[in-house]
């Protein structure tokens, strides 16, 4: 399963720059390709492609969203158990562990430190075992 680049690619390179695993290659101005063996299905390329040239693993065309409008993870401290799964799952490595207050002592709760690097992939939401993470657009 992998994302794929179709005919509408104009070779702008936006997807190459955003891909967290270096799966996209191609010369400037020419059609790019995604290496299916490296793709982790984060969908960042689909969201950033201004031409709508990218299809998801089901073959559905992705829709361009302005990066400032990409949703970001919000953490519910009451449910969060500081298990570090979301921090580990983040392919953009934009989450860090920060000591949050807890009656029984500080624990390594997740914090979105580098919001600009967030890919809006939602892996943190999908992997959280207790539903403590949700995606929301910045207000």
């Amino acid at each position, binding site marked *: 399963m992998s994302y794929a680049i179709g005919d509408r690619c104009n070779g702008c390179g936006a997807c190459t720059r955003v891909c967290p695993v*270096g799966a996209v290659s191609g010369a400037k101005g020419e059609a790019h390709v995604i290496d299916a063996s490296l793709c982790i299905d984060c969908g960042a390329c689909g969201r950033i492609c201004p031409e709508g040239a990218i299809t998801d693993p089901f073959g559905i065309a992705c829709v361009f969203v302005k990066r400032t409008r990409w949703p970001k993870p919000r953490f519910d401290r009451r449910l969060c*158990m500081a298990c570090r799964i979301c921090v580990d799952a983040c*392919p953009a490595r934009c989450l860090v562990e920060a000591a949050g207050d807890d009656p029984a*002592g*500080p624990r*390594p709760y997740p914090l979105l430190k580098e919001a600009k690097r967030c890919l809006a992939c939602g892996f943190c939401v999908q992997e959280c075992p207790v539903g403590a993470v949700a995606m929301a657009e910045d207000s």
Partner: protein
Amino acid sequence: MGYGYTGRILNVDLTRGTTCVEEVPAEVYEAYLAGTGLASFILHDRIPPGADPFGEENILAFVSGLLTGTGALFSGRWMAAGKSPLTGGWGDANCGGILSPAIKRNGYDGIFFSGKSEGPVYLYVKDGRPEIRDASHLWGRDTVETEETLIAETGGTATVAAVGPAGERLSLIAGISHEKGRLAARSGLGAVMGAKRLKALVLDGKRRIDVFDRAEIRDLSRRCNRWVRLQPPFLPAAPAALIGTLMRVLPFQMAMDGMVYKILLRKWGTGSMNQISVEMGDAPVKNWKGTNRDWGLGRSYSVNPDAVARFERMKYHCYSCPLGCGGICVDAGPYGRMHKPEYETVIALGALCMNDDLGAIMHMNEMLNRAGMDTISAGGTIAFAMECFENGILTRSDLDGLELKWGDSGAMIALVEKMIRREGIGDVLADGSRAAAEKIGRGAEALAMHAGGQELPMHDGRNDPGFNVHYSVEATPGRHTIGAQLYYEMFRLWTEVEGLPRPPLFYMKGRKYLPDEEKALAAAACSRFMNVANGAGLCLFGLFLGVDRIPVFSWLNAATGWRLEAGEYMEIGRRIQDRKQAFNIRQGIDPLSFRVPDRAAGRPPQTAGANRGRGMDIVAWMRDYWRVSGWDEARGTPGRGGSGR
């Protein structure tokens, strides 16, 4: 490819400097799971009989668990495995942190190192692409420096496992360090890594793990998490210590419920037992010859869990752990930030050596973590040397001028320094107490408290004979993380597995010491269950909740899509146990030689303290275990037949 596992391992030949990806058939996972099960399947055949643990033929495996990365809680354990230079047989070591998901996020279930590099190297794997890199600039540096340097030079997001100076100098009690001071400490596998001149493993991967039913896993995890979050307020440390006293003076005992221990672990970590264990007779004192009377509440007060907690700045959680038993401490010493000393460390460097100086224990803990040396074995070896000194077997001149009296924390620190550097007497002691006793002679062997060469951990088999059984019968002897009568009570396996005995809620203490079929079945069940857990990458402390609260078997089914019953998973555990034992037989180990020393078995029994009058015929217990495992009752060799279930 299946679900839950990646179906691939990475083989690295350090002699040739080559790497190759190997596909592992689905049948192997169905028969052995991942983790140590997978390692036992592969290493049994590929390490030839009589292989030199430090030679090219030995293979060092880093394996991840089957449940790691699937959303199952407590699934962040990774394991190292290989032929142990300390015991000469199967060696494995278990550690938490974040390396287990890092292995899988590179698309592998394990990384297997064979051969030996000429110069120091480290393996860097980025998104599944391996690269062997030069590590000359890191050789000789401690584990914390190595980890910081490697993370910085690979872009700041990698995960590292490394050996320190102890492993480089082939100390037989060296471990592999991860997250700046968590160690896969036992079995001496750090020395195997050092012998291969492999300084570190550096992983940076982002792949996701395919799971059969992630929603089901999440549902199970949520239910399990409710038990973990159930945390009523608990006593402060000083009155809590009296629980141990009460347990000692009562003539009867109650079957332990793991929820009690869970509450202690969440509040204080393993250090919650620092005083309670001594009081109840679970912690060995003065190289196993002392008792709780030598180490009363007044002496152990300095290491009480509240005292340790004063240094704690933040709780430490391993990957996917809702409990968080670890801690990051800051002290005024030269190291500053460090991991909180675990119970095993506090007793090994404390009560076992009659040392009540918490500052010195924390300092030595950090020295050993940075050197990559096992604190249990180091403490056991120092206690051994102290008793040798007391008995005149080692003199001041033998000890390079050190006055190694019981409880002299200054002398202990100096000795640890020498062991790390392998200077003078430190060179003799750096290989553990068995090797040291062989070199020292003069009757020192009787004072070395080891099973099969591995120093005994800090749980006294004269208090719970189940510990002695597992110290003696496991393929990796002297391990406290596999089974005990106490563990069997907490695992509550009888609630899921048919045919297993249910212990009574209350029983007289004398019952514990009578070997019978039920206890042998319980011990074999602990071994099998922990093999399943180590195949799944689960943490022992999570399992203490009991299988009716931590859904081990349901998680495995939901992750893989298999439809196996609990009993069938236990059968997998049995297969792994057989495989590890067969490894030892193939390597020429006599299973009887792994039995605990007479002193630890209560032969003769102690005359005072919590365990007075307690003793056991350990060989009889071992034979019972072998019989119910379906092994040869006289020799402990696995084979067909027998009455094992």
